[in-house]
Structures are given as structure tokens and as C-alpha cells.
């Protein structure tokens, strides 16, 4: 790290010069937490790379992109991990990312052909509810019911933006009418996933916007079968999480090695029970026991990155307009 001497002086710490090369990966907060994939990924990659992998948490996906733009070409980051397809167009337009050379046999419900971003996991957005509850099967039924939901604000969270895209992808120009119908079902809109999920667990709403894989967490980590995801007839919008290499990286080879490692068994087998998403390449050992109980949507919805970027602002205005009435 360029400024380690200065930093060591300031902190009075004994941060020595890095003798081994250091690869800095910016990611979102939950990736680096003790329960996230971070610790295991760091251990596994350091075993093979002869380097020091430094994972840095910077808010969520959107904040991550803002951070990279703020730092510009001088960023310490070599790799950014944790953007999704709603953000990749803006990320590509920043000109800060370099093409990758990773090849892999992806197990995604859609074909992947992006030359800049490598997918490492994916999931379906879904409304999670208590398993014994009787829940609607599509957005129109939800709007007609008195089922109460908590959602996230698209301006401050990636799931919130995902739901915006979900309704847009499923209903196009009809989206504002759907939102108007939903307005009396929405208990409230939160800043991020944590607040919304916390409120759902406290019993404030019947359903919360999360992922089809959320029940797997409760089932596998807590042996709790009381949560389920509602299957919607329109299909479910996907979130594909990706990583990219920064053009200004001072460790381009290590960065390439990391991206390739990211789609290998060692990395992919960590994902399901730490990030609670589907791995982008199913590991040789298959998915952990319990994942077979999850719902599988009949239809996968995903707006291509360019289209997602193009409709984003208009969709936000529609959302705001319909819910402000």
C-alpha cells in the first residue's frame, strides 16, 4: 500500500512494508463480516496466491460504486466485488474497469457474455413470509389482498432497486398501476435490507422483500423451518452479483488470478452458506443440503445491464409518483 508509512506513523502501529504482494478487493459490508464469505475466501485464496488478500468493506453495492468513482484512477483497489447488473452499466461507463480473461461454465439461468464483469453468485428476489401463512401468488393478487409487506427504498438499497426492476420487467408500462395497487399493502419502506428484515422478524409485516434463498439460512444455520419464500407467477427478478478488475490496478496479474479463483470450486463452495446466494458455478459437491427445499421460479426476469440503466430513472419517478399519492 502506497501510504502505509504515513499510516503507520499516524497510528503508531507497526505496519511493516508488505513483503508479499497485496491484492486489495473492495466489497460490501456483509461480505467481510465474520459470517460472510470474507474470512474463508481470504484463507483459501492466500493458500494459492502467495499474496496478502485485503478485503475492504464499503457499504452496499451502490455505495461501493460511488466509492470507486470518488477515488478514481488512484484507487488502492485492484478488484471490486459486489456490484450487480443494475449497476454494471454505470460502472462500465466510468471507464475505471478493465476487461477480464476469465472463462467458466456458468450455472446461471441466463447466458452470460460480459467482457468486463465476472459473476460470482446470483439469486432471485422474493417475498419471504412465515411458512404457515397463506400468501398471494402474484403482484396483482398481492395488491388485491390485505397482506402487509415491508420493502426497501430503491434509492438507498440494492434489493429496493431490484424490486423496482422486477415490477418494471414484469409489467412494463403497467408498472405505475401495480405500484398504486400495492401502496396500501406497504407498511413502510426502509433504508436497507437489515432494517426491513429486522422488522419482518419482529412481526411488523406479513412479508419482506428478500431472496428465495433466505429461508435456507433459517433452515441450515438455525434449523428453523418456519420461513418460506412466496412464488410469484410473473417470474422472479434475478440479482447477479459480479466482480471486476480496475484498469489502474498495480497488481493486474493477481487481480486476474483472483477473478479466475472466484469461479473455482474453492470459492464457489463457500458462497451458498455464507452469502446465502446460489453459486455462479455449481461446485463439484453440489449445493448444500436444504437448498433443494427452496422454491424455483418458473420464469427468470432480468433486464440487460444497458436497459436496466436506461429505465432506472424513469422507473424511480413512476415508483415515487405512485406511492406519493
Amino acid at each position, binding site marked *: 500500500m502506497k*501510504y502505509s508509512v*504515513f499510516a503507520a506513523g499516524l497510528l503508531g502501529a507497526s505496519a511493516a512494508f508488505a513483503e508479499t504482494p497485496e491484492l486489495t478487493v473492495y466489497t460490501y459490508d456483509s461480505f467481510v463480516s465474520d459470517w460472510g464469505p470474507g474470512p474463508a475466501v481470504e484463507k483459501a485464496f492466500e493458500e494459492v496466491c502467495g499474496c496478502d488478500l485485503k*478485503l*475492504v*468493506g464499503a457499504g452496499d453495492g451502490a455505495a461501493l*460504486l460511488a466509492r470507486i468513482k*470518488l477515488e478514481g484512477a488512484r484507487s488502492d483497489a485492484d478488484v471490486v466485488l459486489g456490484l450487480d447488473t443494475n449497476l454494471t452499466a454505470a460502472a462500465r461507463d466510468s471507464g475505471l474497469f478493465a476487461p477480464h480473461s476469465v472463462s467458466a461454465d456458468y450455472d446461471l439461468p441466463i447466458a452470460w457474455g460480459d467482457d468486463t464483469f465476472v459473476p460470482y453468485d446470483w439469486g432471485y428476489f422474493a417475498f419471504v413470509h412465515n411458512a404457515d401463512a397463506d400468501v398471494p401468488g402474484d403482484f396483482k393478487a398481492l395488491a388485491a389482498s390485505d397482506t402487509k409487506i415491508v420493502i426497501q427504498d430503491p434509492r438507498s438499497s440494492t434489493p429496493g432497486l431490484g424490486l423496482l426492476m422486477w415490477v418494471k420487467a414484469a409489467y412494463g408500462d403497467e408498472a405505475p398501476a401495480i405500484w398504486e395497487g400495492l401502496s396500501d399493502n406497504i407498511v413502510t419502506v*426502509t433504508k436497507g435490507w437489515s432494517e426491513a428484515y429486522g422488522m419482518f422478524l419482529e412481526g411488523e*409485516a406479513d412479508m419482506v422483500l428478500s431472496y428465495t434463498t433466505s429461508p435456507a439460512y433459517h433452515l441450515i444455520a438455525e434449523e428453523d423451518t418456519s420461513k418460506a419464500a412466496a412464488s410469484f407467477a410473473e417470474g422472479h427478478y434475478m440479482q447477479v452479483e459480479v466482480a471486476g478488475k480496475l484498469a489502474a490496478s498495480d497488481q493486474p496479474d493477481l487481480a486476474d488470478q483472483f477473478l479466475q479463483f472466484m469461479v473455482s470450486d474453492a470459492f464457489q463452495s463457500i458462497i451458498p452458506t455464507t452469502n446465502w446466494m446460489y453459486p455462479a458455478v455449481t461446485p463439484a459437491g453440489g449445493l448444500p443440503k436444504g437448498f433443494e427445499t427452496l422454491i424455483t421460479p418458473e420464469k427468470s426476469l432480468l433486464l440487460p445491464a444497458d436497459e436496466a440503466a436506461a429505465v432506472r430513472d424513469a422507473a424511480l419517478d413512476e415508483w415515487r409518483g405512485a406511492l406519493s399519492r
Partner: protein
Amino acid sequence: MARRAQPLSPAAGYGAAALVAALILGTLAAVAFSAEAGRGLSSADWAAVRFTLIQASLSALFSVALAVPVARALARRRFRGRSVLIALLGAPFILPVIVAILGLLAVFGRAGWVSDALALFGLEPLSIYGLHGVVLAHVFFNLPLATRLILQGWQEIPAERFRLAAQLDAGPRAMWQLLEAPMLARVVPGALAVVFAICLSSFAVALTLGGGPRATTIELAIFQAFSFDFDLGRAALLSGLQLVLTALAATLALRAPVGEGFGTGLDRILRRWDGQSTLARSLDTFWIVFSGMFLLLPLLAVVLSGLPGVLSLPASVWQAALASILVAGASTLILLALALPMALAAALGRPLPMEIAGLLGLAASPLVIGTGLFILIYPIASPFALALPVTALVNAVMALPFALRILVPACRDVVARHCKLALTLDMRGWPFLRRVVLPRLRAQIGFAAGLAAALSMGDLGVIALFADPEVATLPLQVYRLMGAYQMQAAAGAALLLLVLSMGAFWILDRGGRWHAEA
């Protein structure tokens, strides 16, 4: 009185105020200058400005209107556990927002205790989502602060005044007209301004309890400008607007009549002879019980949900707790170094610039300060390495308005009472400070330091922008735990945070209670 000889020079205070203004305006400028041409303010932004003003005004009015009878009851009554209650009442103010919201929901939510009780009578559950929910939460956060500020005003009335009033057989009405109303006229405008300014920059509370996009505040619009649009120009514009609104509110509030104070007392222990009628007693009891229930039940909910997780907290939580304690300590020292000279300068010379410099700290968006500092620091050093010092500094600036509100009236009284005598004795500078000022300000310094430490402990503002995984503070760790489905550990960590904040406040505030106790 600017030209009169003074035992102390206000220069240090002007320096501190300039430093604070430079930090806030400098970071704002840094953000504005790195902006590419933005798209200006939209109609949605103006709607956010309107909503922000409405909710902040209502929140300030309700908080202060409720705080007056509560503070009066606390000022008149002495009972076992009073000091503990006063310390506990401070707790909501320093809780991380998400913890406080979950605590509030446990009591007032759709599945909360109140709704459960209503269901027993066949009534509909409570809905706290909407403008009234936002105001309810803001009163929960700010009633304790307003109460303490007003209680401080009551305690600054010298005991001799009450003795004299009692000797003259002044009834409740006369007591109110002679002593209490003039004191309130001095204290209430400032309390209104502080609460208004706090609520102006509300974000997560307004969003979560507001019920939807109608409840968009300026701070959310700033957040959107940053992370959704990456429109730095719009963020700077909105942040500037927020600063102007606060400065306007502050100027209005501080132009309210400033009374003459109550003259010199002998620092005698306060005894009250008034308010002994049954009606007064029952009213006071009602207000103490009401505020106690309103503020403590949600805290009880936080404690109850945290207890199962607190014994099995992971090591990272303890590390984060240590980081939080260090930050809070540093922040408190920085705060006192800024606030004391500023308060003295306000007492010696022109108070308005000091007050405004202080209030700017509240109105400035932490996101803009953080990003501005990031832009400024980035060419020189790694922002990660500076995460904790920067957090301590920003927290100190955020606590400054509270400290000034607490310190300035007391400083003014000390200067008014002892200045002439000190000058006659040719006692100036450090000896005057050490022998006259500091002992008399002990209570206020303790309160301000306690508040600063506790606020800093619970703050999530800047650290989120700068943190790397090794230096998370406790509030950030709570969010990270929740983000990883670790709700129980998060609840445990939140309880730990509550205990640490309260502990820091209690230890530092002892001085305040030493002064106030009968």
C-alpha cells in the same frame, strides 16, 4: 460589552469557531468542486425540503412542549432513583437509530406491546407509520435532550431565589411569573433550535417510520445524489440548503429575548418550598411516570431482546467495542477543547457566531463531511488509516451544538458574576479559569462531556464511509451482524452499545448530578 476589559481573551474561542466552520464549509466546498455539472434540484428535491421542514418543526414543538412539564416535575421533586432516572432518560438520544427503531416497534409497532394490549379489547393494532410515526420517534429521541436542557435552566436559578420567593409567600402563579417563565424564555428557544436542527438531518428514522417516498428528507435526497446518481453537485447543493435552513432557524431562535439571568447565588443546595399541593404533586407524578414509561419501555425492549445474545458475542464485537471506546474518549477531549473556549467567547463577546458555528455541526450532512474529508485526505493519506481519528473529530463537531447549549448560559453567568471582582483582584487568564470558571462549570462540563462520549459511542455517520474491516466501531458492527442474518448477535451487540453509552454518560455526568442534588 466588547470593549470592556476582560479577565479572559475570547481569541481562542473565535479560533475554535473558525476551525469548525472551516471543517464544515471546507468539506462542502471539496464536494462541490469535485462535482461535474449536475442537474440541479428537481421537484422531488423540493418536496423533500418541504417534508423535512414540516417534520422537523413538529418534532421540535412536541419535544419541547412535553419537556417543559417533565423538567419542571423533575426540578421540583426529590425521590429515590431520581438521578438514575435522569441518567436513563438520556439513553434514547444516544442509541443507534436502527436499535431505537426496533425498540420503538416492540412497544408501538403493529405487533408491539401496545397493539397486543389493544387487541385484548378487540381494538385495531396501532399504526406508527406516517408523519405521526416520524414525530413520535423524534420525540422519543429528543425529549430527553430537551428535558435535560430545560432542567439545567431550572437548576441555574439560585437556591436563594426560591428561598426568598418562599419567604415572601409567593404562590404558584407568582413563582411562575417571577422565576420560571423568564427562565423558560431564555432556555426554550435554544432547545427548539437544537431539536429542529437534529431532526432536519434525519434520514433513517424518517424513512423507516415515514411509510414511503412521501417521507423523503433532504438527507435521503443527499444520499440518493451520492450513491444512486453519483451527482456530487446536487449533494453539495442540498447540503448547503440544509445548512442555510439551520442557520435561519438558529438565528430566529437565538434572537428571542435574553433575560438578565438570576444574579449571584452562594452555590447553596437547592430546596423548594413550592408545589406542595396535591394537584401539583399528582401532576408532577403523572409527568415523571409518563416520560419514564415512554422512554424506558422501548429501552426495556432493547434489553430484553439483547440479553440472550450478549453472552455469546463474537470477538469482533469486543474489538469494535474497544474501538468505539477509544473514539468516544478522543471525541470527548476534542469536543471540550473546542466547546469551552467557544462558550467563554460567547459569554465574553458576541454569542451569535459561536452558536451558529456550533449548530452548523448539526445541520451538516455526515455524508457530505465524510465525503469531503475523503476527497481532501485522499491525496495525502489512506482514508482507512484515518478512519478512527476522523470519526472522533466529526463526532466532536456533531456534539458541539449540545455542548454550547449546555455551557454558554453557565459561562455567561460566571462572567457576569465574577468578572468585576476578578479584574479588581487583577486575576486574569489561567488562574481565573482554574479558580473561578472551571469549578463553577463542573456540572455543565460533566454533562457536555457525557453527552459527547455517549453520542460518539452510538454514531454511525462517517465511519461507514471510511471503515475497513479491522476498525469497525460498535454501531457499524451491529449493522454488519444484521446484514449477515445474525439478528440475535446484533441485538446482543446493541445491548452492549447501550450499556457502554450509558456507562460513559453516567461516569462523566456525575459532576452534573453532584451539583444538582439535594
